[in-house]
C-alpha cells in the first residue's frame, strides 16, 4: 500500500518515498493498488508515484474518500502544458509531457515553452506572497528551472517529464519536483565514455567536479548547472533543500547540514528525480552571490 505520512522532515519523506517506490516496483503492469489516506503531500512525495502509476497503467483505490487534493492536482495523469492551467491556486498541477516521439527541434520548442509558461504561472498565481518573488527574483527561479530543463534536453533521453509545484503560505516556501524517466546520470556519463563506477560515483562526480557527459577540451566550462543550483538553494538566505536521485543513489542537502549521500538498497530509479525547495529570503537575494 502507498502511504504518505505527515513528516515535516525531508529525510524521513525521502525514506518513505523510496519505500513506496520499492513497493510499486514489485507490482505488475495493469494491477490494482491501494493508496492509504494521505496526511500531507509534497511534490517529492507524490510526483514519482504518479509517474510509476502511469507507466505501469496501475489502477488505484483510495482507502478513504478524502482524495480531493489528489484530484485537484490531477494525480496521477497530470496535464500537458497546453491545457488550461487553474489560476489563483497555491499549486501548479502535475504537468506531464510525453516527449517520446518528438524531434530534437520539437523537444527544444516544448522545453522553452514549458519554462515560459511555468514561470508565468509560478509568479502570477501560486506564489501569492508577491514580496517572495520580488526578493528571490524571477531570474533565480528561472535559473533553477532552466538548468533542469536544459539537462533533460541534453542528457536524459527521456520519454516522459513530470513537474509539480506547491507553495505553502504558512511557511512562505515553495517546492518543485521535476522527474524524467531517461537514462539517468550514470548511463549518461558512461555512454559518453566518462570513467564512473556506479550511480553514486556519477552523482558525486557531477556535484563535486562538475563532470559532464559533453566536456570538450578547451571549451567553455560545462557541468555547472546542478552544482550552482545546489549552491543557490542551500544557503542561509533561501534556507532551501536540494535532492537528486538517479539509478540507485541519491543526494540530499539542506541549508542546515553538510549533505548526505544515499545508497538505495535493492532499488534503482530509471531516470532522475530532482526536488528543489526554497523559502522567501528576508532581504533582497542575488543569485550572482552564489553563481560562479
Amino acid at each position, binding site marked *: 500500500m502507498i502511504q504518505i505520512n505527515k513528516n515535516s522532515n525531508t529525510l524521513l519523506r525521502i525514506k518513505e518515498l523510496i519505500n513506496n517506490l520499492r513497493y510499486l516496483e514489485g507490482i505488475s503492469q495493469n494491477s490494482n493498488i491501494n493508496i492509504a489516506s494521505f496526511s500531507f503531500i509534497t511534490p517529492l512525495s507524490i510526483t514519482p508515484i504518479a509517474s510509476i502509476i502511469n507507466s505501469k497503467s496501475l489502477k488505484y483505490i483510495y482507502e478513504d474518500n478524502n482524495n480531493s487534493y489528489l484530484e485537484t492536482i490531477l494525480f496521477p495523469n497530470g496535464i500537458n502544458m497546453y491545457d488550461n492551467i487553474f489560476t489563483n491556486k497555491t499549486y501548479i498541477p502535475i504537468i506531464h509531457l510525453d516527449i517520446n516521439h518528438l524531434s530534437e527541434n520539437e523537444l527544444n520548442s516544448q522545453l522553452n515553452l514549458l519554462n515560459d509558461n511555468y514561470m508565468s504561472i509560478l509568479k502570477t498565481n501560486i506564489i501569492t506572497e508577491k514580496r517572495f518573488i520580488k526578493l528571490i527574483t524571477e531570474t533565480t527561479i528561472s535559473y533553477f528551472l532552466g538548468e533542469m530543463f536544459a539537462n533533460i534536453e541534453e542528457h536524459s533521453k527521456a520519454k516522459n517529464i513530470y513537474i509539480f509545484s506547491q507553495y505553502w503560505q504558512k511557511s512562505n516556501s515553495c517546492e518543485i519536483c521535476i522527474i524524467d524517466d531517461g537514462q539517468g546520470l550514470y548511463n549518461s556519463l558512461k555512454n559518453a565514455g566518462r570513467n564512473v563506477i556506479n550511480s553514486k560515483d556519477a552523482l558525486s562526480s557531477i556535484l563535486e567536479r562538475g563532470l559532464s557527459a559533453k566536456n570538450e577540451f578547451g571549451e567553455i*566550462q560545462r557541468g555547472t548547472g546542478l552544482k550552482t543550483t545546489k549552491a543557490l538553494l542551500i544557503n542561509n538566505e533561501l534556507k532551501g533543500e536540494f535532492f537528486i536521485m538517479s539509478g540507485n543513489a541519491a543526494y540530499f542537502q539542506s541549508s542546515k547540514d553538510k549533505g548526505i549521500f544515499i545508497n538505495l538498497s535493492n532499488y534503482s530509479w530509471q531516470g532522475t528525480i530532482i526536488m528543489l525547495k526554497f523559502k522567501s529570503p528576508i532581504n533582497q537575494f542575488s543569485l550572482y552571490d552564489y553563481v560562479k
Partner: protein
Amino acid sequence: MLSKNIDLYNCFNSSSLITRKSASIIFDEISKIQEDNIILDFHGIKYTSRSFLNELISKDSKFHLLNKNVDYVNMSSDISKLYNLVKNSSGLKSSVTYPSLAKAKTITI
C-alpha cells in the same frame, strides 16, 4: 557590409531560451545567412539558462570563421549579467571551485 537582424523572440516564439539546442539553432541560422553583420535581438526574451548562454558563447569563436560579425542587442539587465558572468568564467574547469562533498555522510536506505 550587409546586416541582418534576427528577432529571437519571433524566431523561437518564446520568451525563454533554455537549451543548448536553441544556441545551436541560432548558429545554424547564422551560417545560412548571406549577410556578414548579424544582429541577435534579445527583445522579448525574459529568461535564458546558463547552459544556453554557455553554448552561445562557445559559438562566438566560430562566428568569425564564418566571416560573420555578431552583435547582441536588447539583452535585459538580468540576461546581460548572466551572460557576462558566463563569459568571464569561461576557461578551464579549475578556475571554478565549489565546496567539497568530502564531509557528506553516506547512509543506506
